[in-house]
């Protein structure tokens, strides 16, 4: 249970990280919070020649709002998602999901960018970037680009990041006065990965939901948007009938697989139950005043 020997390089800037990457000829890996990478190195699932520590790069830190966009630096810790007033105000869905991300000590070290770059389909934040219509700011040796969350999560642990690229920040449209959001997950034990989880953000006109984005975690090899369920609730008051229609539509969005712990049918059933609960909650005008479990 010990990592194979490697050379350790601490990069102080994004450019220095790219230089180290080039020098290592690709036989290297970036280290941020290390909360997924270190166990993977210990198990020798990965054995790079060089470990490039990007965790002190100033340009990857900070949370700031400019216009209608909240920019969250890739190195923002999960624990800050719970305490940052900017997150609570402008991206409350992340605040709501944060208590479900691992355990307190892991949240002290794990980073927002790390969980997105890893793209674990069972992780909370990658799925939430879909619900939030987030955009990723990416730097590569040849320059900068942005990419929408939609389309970024390609397959199991496979994203739109090209080898050597660094996720710099996550851009999130700020939460509007007529927006509401909800998050919940079903897990066997507090802090464990969810059997199924979901977050929804929607814009209302009075009681009528204009549009919403629904994202699921732990249902496939990537985080998933439930577009058919979204269509079923768009421009509707969230009555029991409308909610039932969304639950029915979910079979066109999700196609879970069997695994040792949970059958596909069970997971589908739990996803429907969860969606019903979340939409019921979202439909209530006071949904944003309900306490958030920390």
């Amino acid at each position, binding site marked *: 249970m010990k990592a194979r*020997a490697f050379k350790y390089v*601490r990069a102080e800037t994004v450019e220095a990280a790219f230089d180290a990457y080039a020098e290592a000829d690709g036989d290297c890996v970036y280290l941020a919070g290390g909360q997924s990478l*270190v166990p993977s190195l210990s198990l020798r699932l990965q054995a790079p020649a060089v470990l490039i520590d990007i965790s002190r790069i100033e340009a990857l830190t900070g949370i700031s709002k400019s216009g209608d966009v909240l920019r969250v630096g890739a190195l923002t810790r999960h624990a800050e998602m719970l305490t940052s007033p900017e997150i609570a105000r402008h991206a409350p869905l992340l605040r709501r999901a944060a208590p479900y991300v691992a*355990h*307190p*000590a*892991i949240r002290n*070290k794990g980073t927002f960018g790390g969980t997105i770059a890893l793209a674990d389909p069972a992780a909370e934040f990658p799925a939430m970037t879909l619900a939030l219509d987030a955009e990723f700011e990416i730097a590569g040796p040849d320059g900068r680009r942005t990419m929408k969350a939609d389309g970024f999560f390609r397959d199991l642990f496979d994203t739109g990041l090209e080898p050597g690229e660094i996720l710099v920040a996550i851009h999130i449209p700020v939460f509007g006065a007529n927006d509401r959001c909800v998050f919940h997950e079903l897990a066997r034990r*507090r802090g464990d990965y969810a059997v199924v989880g979901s977050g929804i953000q929607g814009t209302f006109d009075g009681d009528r939901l204009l549009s919403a984005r629904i994202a699921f975690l732990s249902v496939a090899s990537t985080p998933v948007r439930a577009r058919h369920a979204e269509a079923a609730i768009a421009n509707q008051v969230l009555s029991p009938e409308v909610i039932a229609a969304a639950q029915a539509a979910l079979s066109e969005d999700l196609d879970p697989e069997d695994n040792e712990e949970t059958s596909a049918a069970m997971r589908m059933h739990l996803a429907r139950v969860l969606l019903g609960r979340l939409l019921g909650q979202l439909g209530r005008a006071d949904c944003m005043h309900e306490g958030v479990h920390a």
Partner: protein
Amino acid sequence: MSERVPIALEVNGETVARTIEPRMSLADFLREELELTGTHLGCEMGVCGACLVLLNGKAVHACLMFAVQAHGERVETVEGLTERKAIADIQEAFHNNNALQCGFCTTGMLVTAHEMLSRGDILSREEIRDGLSGNYCRCTGYQAIVNSIETVAQARAVAGAAPSKPE
């Protein structure tokens, strides 16, 4: 074997410098290089919480970081917390409540309890249980541990409130 590298960090208030292999975990560094064996290793995967230490004041898993990453940083272990009596009341409560059997998980439990209690909130049993969700104990069933932390939370709240009470 890879090149050894020099590191210097503050551990329990003292600066220590060593030359180590980059792949050495912070937990192994504390235990083997510094003989601070209060930091225990159970799973070495971030699951059991036996290896918790404070890094710049925040609880982190010493098995989930390499010692080189702590270069220039401040680490405090259960030994440091004990010496400066930061957890004396928690240790006493554990003792009074029989909150351990084999004691393997205890040091990690103490570090978690310390972080939880230093936020200064009045903690409900639910919150204490939630805070302990990353700590495994094979022996006690947690009841006595939760009781101990609850006792300290209440005692500290009373002590903290006392000076402003007189009116």
